């Protein structure tokens, strides 16, 4: 017992050191990302002043007003000074205020976050729910009729432009058949709370479909490849030899082993939950982060773009860190070599 505890203590300490090391490494990485985004944004052509009109209206701001706006946004300051001011606020957990409406960036992100999380989260769940069985069944009989047909179908879906599919679905299911709402998060007269859930789900149906169909292909094909690989392993043959049914062998043995790359992929996909989808959110008038990001880039709303980039970078680093820690936890060789 005493020896076992010592071994356990040593393992935990090792893991803790590993995690601390990775967190410390993440700080300069995050700083590097932030500096890069700041520079790219500020060195790109255009400015909040020149972006304040619109191509639809052709409006532009007059010369004197331009100069006043430059001062208001601190654009007359040298770049290092602007960065210093911004980073000084960030370390105090203040992302600044939007150039567009002067509201705190954190408030604008907080407003748009739930819509994007709901949309992307549901799309991810739906993708997994469809892609995994497809991949397992296709991998169960490689080159069989189902494998071939599903491959063609998935690649056809993958090749279909999302804007086109979205407009087509809107025309058919909303305008022609009237089955689903055309856009938005909820109907104007929808009840709140639980009573409104059905209405909200109906509004989610089309955008979730559009986000899902394109990502089915690569996930299903990864699962299929893993299953095909597992089928050639001895343990799969042994399971069949033990009298385990083919279906059970596929799901219990082949699929479990094929799941590892899927989990790795999920680690990479999770930060995407925060990034939103520009095209889908615009077409379905979805008030999410993707639209906020896109509009902010167009209007050169530097504080919002930087805030969203920072949130995205933190989420990516956190997901990467979590994946690394999970690996280290599962495989001692990782923490030893780190």
């Amino acid at each position: 017992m005493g020896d076992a505890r010592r071994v356990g203590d040593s393992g935990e300490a090792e893991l803790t050191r590993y995690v601390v090391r990775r967190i410390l490494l993440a700080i300069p990485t995050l700083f590097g990302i932030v500096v890069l985004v700041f520079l790219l944004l500020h060195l790109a052509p255009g400015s909040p002043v020149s972006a304040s009109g619109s191509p639809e209206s052709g409006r532009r701001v007059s010369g004197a007003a331009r100069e006043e706006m430059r001062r208001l946004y601190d654009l007359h300051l040298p770049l290092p000074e602007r960065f210093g001011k911004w980073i000084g606020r960030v370390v105090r957990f203040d992302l600044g205020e939007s150039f567009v409406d002067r509201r705190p960036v954190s408030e604008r992100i907080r407003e748009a976050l739930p819509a994007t999380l709901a949309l992307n989260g549901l799309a991810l769940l739906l993708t997994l729910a469809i892609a995994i069985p497809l991949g397992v069944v296709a991998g169960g009989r490689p080159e069989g009729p189902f494998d071939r047909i599903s491959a063609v179908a998935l690649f056809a879906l993958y090749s279909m432009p999302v804007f086109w599919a979205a407009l087509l679905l809107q025309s058919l299911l909303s305008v022609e058949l009237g089955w689903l709402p055309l856009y938005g998060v909820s109907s104007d007269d929808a009840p709140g709370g639980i009573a409104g859930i059905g209405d909200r789900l109906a509004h989610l149906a089309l955008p979730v479909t559009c986000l899902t169909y394109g990502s089915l292909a690569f996930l299903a094909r990864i699962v299929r490849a893993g299953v095909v690989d597992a089928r050639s392993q001895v343990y799969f043959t042994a399971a069949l030899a033990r009298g385990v049914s083919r279906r059970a062998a596929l799901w219990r043995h082949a699929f479990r082993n094929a799941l590892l790359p899927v989990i790795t992929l999920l680690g990479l996909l999770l930060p995407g939950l925060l990034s939103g989808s520009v095209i889908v959110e615009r077409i379905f008038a979805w008030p999410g982060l993707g639209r906020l990001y896109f509009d902010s880039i167009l209007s050169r709303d530097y504080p919002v773009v930087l805030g969203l980039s920072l949130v995205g970078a933190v989420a990516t680093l956190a997901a990467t860190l979590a994946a690394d820690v999970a690996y280290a936890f599962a495989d001692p060789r990782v923490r030893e070599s780190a």
Partner: protein
Amino acid sequence: MKPLSLAIVLGATVATAACRGREEPALNAGTRGPGPTLTAAPEPVLGFLDESREGVPIRGGVLRRRLVGEPSTLNAVLQTGLPEQQILQYLSRPLVDVDARLGLVPGLAERREVSDDGLEYRFFLAPNAVWEDGTPVTSADAIFTIGKAADPKTPSPVFKPLFADLERVEAIDAKSFRARFRRRDAMHAYAFTLPLLPEKRFAGKSFLKARENRAPLANGPYRLASWKTQESIELERNPRWPGTPGNFDRIHFRVVPENAVAYRALVEGRLDETWIDQSLKDRSATDARFAACCRIVEFYNLDYNYIALNNRSPFFSDSLVRRAMTMLRDRPAIVRGLYRGSARMISGPWAPDSPAYDASLTPLPFDPPEAARLLEQAGWRDTDGDGTRDRGGRELEFDLLVSAGSTAGRQINEIFAAELARAGVKARIRTLEWATFVERVDSGDYEAASLAWAASDANPDPFPYWHSSQFPPAGGNVAFYRNAAADELMEEARGELDPEKRRAIYHRLHRVFRNDPPVVFVVNASQKYAFRTRVRGIVTSPLGLYGFWPGPLSWWGTPDESVIPEKPS
């Protein structure tokens, strides 16, 4: 020509001259308060729709309107774009407003006086003008609002230039005040189309960050009921509005960024109106569902498009070359092909419905042989036989910038580039994202650029955009146009308060612009909106569908399309 509805100069000068040195008669019934009035003015030449006298308006129901984007603020001083203008029109009234025929009408001020020298304006607020909380609109509110618009620390791109010459503004009493300018200019009357803000609500708060900027206190026919960020804005009747109430109980604005989606929403019945482009109009012509529920409202406003030519570049510094460029533009073909006939050629920096426009001046014709002769005269010949003209070892070859947001602009300019190529001029079309495009143009870092003039304010004063003292970065003369005769006429027009004399000056100026074109003026294209047929009472104006009083306030709707036996013609 500032962004927003500041009305038209001749209307301005008429009103200004009429009231100089004497009290101006009330333009609206004082007892009714600041309600809508249509003045009897000549109708614009084409595309004017007035359903204000058709049918008996039905009160009630919801009007579902489209917003292309979300307003950044509902503070009238800070407004920058169309979404804000669309909503503020229901909530916040100005001291004076502009009607559909471009005349001045009272807003919150029931009357005004202008001093003999044209420098001082006195406004007398309507006694029944109140905020939605029941407190009266006072001169303190007007002084506060004007002070903020003129404050260098306030970003007020729409109104600040109009108050640039403001010397002082002060109260006479609780319901009247005077504003004095350093310089006489008929345009100053239009500075007072600024909607008022309640001073007391901003006391002790940051003007830029105040909660009131998203929750304004209304003094107009409607008040804000709800604002769901990036989704919708709902207005309801303001029970304290003393004027004629709006016809709809509620106005529901929905943010729908995509035109094609808005069109579908209209057909589905989720929207009552939307702006459409030519392609959607074409589509609607063969769409049975659209025909069953909706109609197109098409009219001309004061917008136009043009190709800016940088007069400082070695190519376009010569007036002969600029004339040649205009004559190489096949504008009749553009009107026929791209706009299906719903556009008008122009020959100066105004649309034909602007009183400044001299309709007797015909635009320069599409005449490639004459253009070639002008280019030869300017010294541009193809001396090396490579198909492109050259002079002094330099080819006549330039970048033509196009904004990525303008599909029509891209199509028009591809045709133009082909026409130029046939004449030995090489134009490379470069599509730039909007902010980048604007930065290049505003800094003068371009040779040619395709631009649209959004003249929803209808102010025809060309001084800020074509006078030689207005070169960038401070001014708006991005073409770097310099013509002594034009400069003189622009200065003369600014100081002239007599409307007829001012019109005559503009017509002389128009002739200068036509003969020495600073840029290639292209067309004034029609504006197209699609409406559910249940919406009636629509009035269009050279200022558009809104941007004038009462504008959409005069619309009304039946609860059901089937109630209307047939569509209005």
